[in-house]
């Protein structure tokens, strides 16, 4: 019963680590509440809730900084903060832009990038952008800290590489003009407050008519958000011509494995994803 679930509101990372070290069974992490509270309201799996570790006020998890060619985003950074951050807008504007497409203002004020990453929903709106940006997730716990590349972090449907005694501390994105620009498009079910039907992110640098440093990532088209490596291979290093674009869109079909669900069906997802990828790639030709 919800009223008997104990909560520890940690005020420091050390306090959070101490609780994690106890390895209490059923320990759940609570940040902004936009996911955990929905589950509790719906009565989903309440019996599996042990203690709740409330990290909302852990200062070490906040803050956005640029240091040494890296954009460093604290796990508790909210969508509103991502939208407002000059650092994000300058170095990874796609992330600020997609934040405006998550829920609506009240959700943006409480939802966090850490929540989006750790919930690992295949529909997580920031995830394709993070995958396409070669993001690194910094994890920490009583046993120490480590970093896991985004494309190794999502190991199964809503399953991540996070150990039971670890927290996501921050997301780091390498930034340099070498790496080109990240663009994305979310195809939602409606114009606000919508879960995506499909979402694609592409990073590339247009090098005199050819594409370099290509990264393509997609959400809602598999059980995990994923890098589309066959599509990447078809586009990376190739001249930016219609043939390249069609080849990449065709190759995309081998990368993705969409299903039918309440929001959309597999066939639509395949067609829309290919069409969106095509337009995003075309966009690099206009630089």
């Amino acid at each position, binding site marked *: *019963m*919800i*009223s008997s679930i104990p909560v520890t509101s940690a005020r420091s990372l050390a306090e959070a680590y101490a609780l994690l070290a106890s390895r209490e069974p059923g320990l759940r992490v609570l940040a902004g509440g936009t996911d955990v509270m929905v589950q509790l309201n*719906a*009565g989903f799996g309440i019996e599996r809730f042990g203690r709740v570790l409330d990290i909302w006020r852990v200062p070490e998890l906040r803050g956005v900084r640029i240091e040494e060619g890296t954009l460093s985003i604290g796990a508790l950074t909210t969508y509103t903060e991502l939208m407002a951050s000059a650092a994000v807008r300058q170095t990874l504007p796609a992330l600020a832009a997609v934040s405006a497409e998550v829920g*609506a203002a009240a959700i943006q004020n409480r939802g966090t990038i850490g929540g989006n990453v750790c919930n690992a929903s295949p529909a997580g709106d920031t995830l394709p952008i993070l995958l396409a940006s070669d993001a690194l997730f910094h994890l920490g716990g009583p046993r120490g800290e480590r970093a896991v590349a985004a494309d190794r972090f999502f190991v199964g449907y809503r399953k991540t590489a996070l150990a039971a005694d670890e927290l996501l501390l921050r997301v780091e994105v390498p930034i340099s003009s070498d790496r080109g620009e990240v663009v994305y498009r979310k*195809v939602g*079910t*409606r*114009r*606000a*407050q*919508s*879960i995506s039907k499909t979402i694609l992110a592409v990073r590339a640098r247009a090098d005199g008519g050819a594409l370099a440093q290509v990264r393509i990532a997609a959400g809602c088209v598999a059980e995990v958000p994923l890098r589309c490596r066959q599509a990447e291979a078809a586009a990376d290093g190739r001249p930016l011509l219609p043939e390249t674009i069609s080849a990449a869109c065709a190759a995309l079909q081998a990368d993705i494995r969409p299903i039918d669900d*309440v*929001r959309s069906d597999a066939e*639509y997802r395949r067609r*829309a994803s290919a*069409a*969106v990828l*095509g*337009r995003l790639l075309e966009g690099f030709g206009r630089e």
Partner: protein
Amino acid sequence: MLRPSLDSLTEGRAVGQSPARLDGRDKVTGRALYLDDLTFPGQVFGRTVRSTVPHARLLGVRFDPAFDWSGITRVTAADIQGDNVVQLIADDQPFLARDVIRHAEEPVALLACADRERLEAALAHVFVDVEPLPPVLDPLRSEVVFKQYLIDHAASGLAEAFARADRVVEGTYLVRHQEQMYIEPNAVCAVPREDGGMTLHGSMQCPFYVHRALQRLLRVGEQQISVLQTVTGGGFGGKEEYPSMVAGHAALLARKSGRPVKMVYRRDEDVAATTKRHPAVMRHRTAVQRDGTLLACEIDVVMDGGAYVTLSPVVASRGVLHAAGAYRWPHARIACRVVQTNTPPNGAFRGFGVPQTIFAVEAQIEKIARELQLDPLEVRRRNALELGDETPTGQKLLWSVSARECLDAVAERSGYAEKRAAFARENAAPGARRKRGIGISLALHGAGFTGAGEAKLKARAGVELTPDGARVLSISTDIGQGTLTVFAQMAADALGLPVPAIEIAESDTSRMPDSGPTVASRTLMVVGGTIAKAAQALSRTLCSFAAEVHGAVAGDVLCENGVFIARGRSLAPFGEIARRWLAERGPLRVVEQYVHPQGIEFDEVSYRGAAYPCYGWSATAVELSVDADTAEVRLDHVVTACDVGKAVHPILAEGQIEGGTVQALGYALLEEVIWKDGRILNTRMQNYLIPTAVDVPHVETILVENPYPHGPYGAKGIGELPATPERILRAIDAAKAGR
């Protein structure tokens, strides 16, 4: 100065203006009290145990012996002392299933407890033992017809008309369920009375439906039940009959526990279990001339009623009566049947069968225009009903017809012709990433109950004198549409008082006359008119009294702006006369009965005659663009013209039109109920999507006032007229076809 006639309502000071709504202040300050805001002393909470299978023999209900049931009240069908039947049309729906489960989410048992968490936990410890039976989920395969209708309009000439037609066009159209999604879920509290009866408080549209249903369930007399409507957070038909079920459940628990029982549905429960718009499959076969003139139609409609009859016969009736649309047909044969499936019963939702059948006829008109290569607007104009025309039931339209006027207004305001041409050019351009389209549709909606409905109902409403003005007496409910305010306007004008002098009595079945349910776009036209009549009668009485008191000639006295005057001379302020009457003569109360105008007759067997006293008309133009890559639709502009007879309160009237239009846009573009094995998959607001503010554009409304001579101030109905979704599809067709 001319003295306005007391017998005719043709002018108003308040009517036609838009005074601030009476309940506005409470609503914007959070003071308005909805059911869940109220606390009843000693209250406990109630929840419903439901079937998870769509069709089964119910073998029994067991309560887990390992669970601690102390302090939890449990009710099953065996506890029902009265009739286990939800009174409505057919006596087929039980409050709690007894031997057979006929739909998923069918109520089987009830629990109540003061501790809500224990109550939630308890639900999982009730076992419903069933022997599943094969469910019928496809209405086209159902063998149980709840009701069927046939409209035969010179049908003997059909074969010949089809034979000589230049073209025969066929089409089949399908619409699915729609969920009302009122933001306040169903909520009722039952409070046991000392006399063994029950008082019900709740969110509802029709207090007397609940009253009668509970009399029967609890086997008590009429005086032992009282039903009070609380401020209701939306209904749209979804709280027409379903509250009887919730109230019955709360009452059964209240009776057994001896405590007030509050039942507030969870959102997912409300979506999963309560009534929805009837899905329909509609087949059209139309004989047309080359120039677009309609010659004949054969229309066949099958509606899915769900597991129990509820209101299906009436929905199907309205559906069949509107299936030919706002057009003139020399010959027509229109059949409609509503059938049973093993899904939760469907019920009322704004439009009540009309959005479904009008959608189909409008789609058919579009198809005809395409096949004949004519402008769809021209096909509509050519065939639109006009004054003096006959409908397929043989009703001669004697007044208030505005089909052409609405079409023309909308075509002009939307720039239809120019845009159509421009979009065709743009869409044909190579590499066009967005295709644009504009479509126009035409609809009508019969105002008030069908046929003899009002004559049978004998709605009663009235006014009583207060020291400073008057109090309106009726059971009609404000569910957001503004009932309280328009009643006050109409009473104020009839009495010659300012609007603030009027109060509206609480909708309480133990105190109010039965003015009928808040449905069928009848509240203003029927009940408002009756209230105005009663107010006029009360005014005449007071004018005579004022004349007596002040030595004037009774026939010279009238009340204006709160003052009794005779031949330009002030006699006394209203309050003085009112208080004097109350002191000397006691209360003054006038209740009138609605009288259906003469000569408006309908044969319910042959389905011939005047189905409705009058019709509302609307035309709508929708401009949109479709993303060629993702098929995402963006609504760019909506213009709608609606003839409501008289806009008693223009802002409220626009509010109905804008709100209804957006519901229709939602139905066309976003809302879909998704089923699996007889259960709904998307029962939450996260996955059944209604429009947000950024999903819909500005809706431009043109209010057309073509008075209905028997309506108060010429007013007809408005609530349901805007709810038809066909307009969007027309525009999408246009865009997709690249036109």
